[in-house]
């Protein structure tokens, strides 16, 4: 069973969480007119075998959005943090 350690609630079954997909995809600014950037945002995914940064929402708990780093090859959870924090860090990177 996949279990996700929520930073607020502690470790819970993944049935309490809802998957939100690849967290590295960046939505273009709403006034961005580049078709290419919107195309990439809507349709293209890295889809790696290995570490994958992805959104999960703890819908059956604190309802926070999280960014989980998980190995798609063996389901091992490598890192979990609140999405708000993760996004701020990503912007500083």
């Amino acid at each position, binding site marked *: *069973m*996949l279990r996700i350690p929520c930073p607020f609630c502690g470790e819970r079954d993944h049935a309490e969480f809802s998957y939100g*997909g690849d967290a590295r995809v960046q939505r273009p600014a709403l006034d961005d007119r580049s*078709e290419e950037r919107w195309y990439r945002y809507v349709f*293209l*995914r890295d*889809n*790696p075998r290995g570490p994958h940064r992805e959104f999960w929402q703890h819908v059956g708990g604190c309802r926070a959005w999280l960014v989980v780093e998980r190995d*798609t090859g063996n*389901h091992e959870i490598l890192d979990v943090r609140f999405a708000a924090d993760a996004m701020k860090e990503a912007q500083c990177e």
Partner: protein
Amino acid sequence: MKRYSAWKLFTHALRGHKDWPEAWRAAEPKKHYDVVIVGGGGHGLATAYYLARNHGITNVAVLERGWIGGGNVGRNTTIVRSNYMIDGNTPFYEWSMKLWEGLSHDLNFNVMLSQRGHVMLAHSADQMQAHVRRANTMRAHGIDAEILSRDELRREVPDLDYSDEARFPIHGAIVQRRAGTARHDAVAWGYARAADRLGVDIIEHCEVTGFVEEGGRVTGVETTRGRIGAGAVGMAVAGHTSELARKAGLELPIESHVLQAFVTEGIKPLIDQVIVFGAGHFYISQSDKGGLVFGGDLDGYNSYAQRGNLPVVHNVAEIALAIAPHLSRLRLLRHWGGVMDMTMDGSPIIARTPLDRLYLNGGWCYGGFKATPASGWTFAHTIAHDAPHELNAPFTLDRFREGVQIDEGGSGPVPGHH
């Protein structure tokens, strides 16, 4: 390589079945092929077979990193049908169905096609109307479809919960009688043997690790058994499409997800058709050995692990009991997972790529087994002519950019929802 026949079976039986010849040669890789197919699943093998049979291109290798039948071709729930409803899909899957109907003879290998009928339940009056619309579309394309009322259905499929207390009461069903199941391993072995007989080299335990390019054109592949030159390369690696295509610099509208399947202990005949639940995702049939074979939804997150988690097991068991409560007495014998190449619109890609002479076959989601013959047929055509067959012309890579997705489920660009 000898033909299989009733007489051969008889004479080999007299000798205790001890001296059957191998079904295909364990070929050594040559320096160069006219066409290299990457991936020895159903689609790769069918492509190689039709390249030789339909186009006379026999200097072909199929490179498989594992063994023949180890991928999704040997992991699926074996349902074949052509009850699709939107442009692009409808004619393609019907052509596949027609090829299925002649496949055992064509391959000289019994793929055990069983046209037992595919019954999709309706659980509301509105869903019956949606089924009628689907049936009309199918019939307008010359595909068999029937609508059964609840009473008619009950006479044909007695062992479901028809009570009004059922959580999702059964109102009726849409039936495709020519649909059914086929033996998945036999499809892989049959295509492999038939391709081998026409001169195709089937090379197992040979992983493609990169592509050789010259001036915007692919000229070969790097493999764990050395470099192999190629006039053209076709990728048919299903769940691993993104990983392989990345090596050629392609970014794809695909996510890999895990889909699980289940088999119970064997019992006497109970379910004669393929039965599909209409108020959730669940499908069930009975194998020739007597086990009930069934499956449901994706687990719902990216995965290459070939194994799933308990919530889906739970959900599938709940649906099984909702439509047929007596199944609670059965024990599960086995369950497993496969890696699904889910596209952003739920439909496949069979197309040229930006790299000259490199072709892509993938994005089969969880419906690629039924597509195997037509996929091989049209992919072989695409490679032989460097241009698509009319049946796969809509399955381009550019359709996402151009806004002409083929979204049968109407789920939008969320791969896990198709």
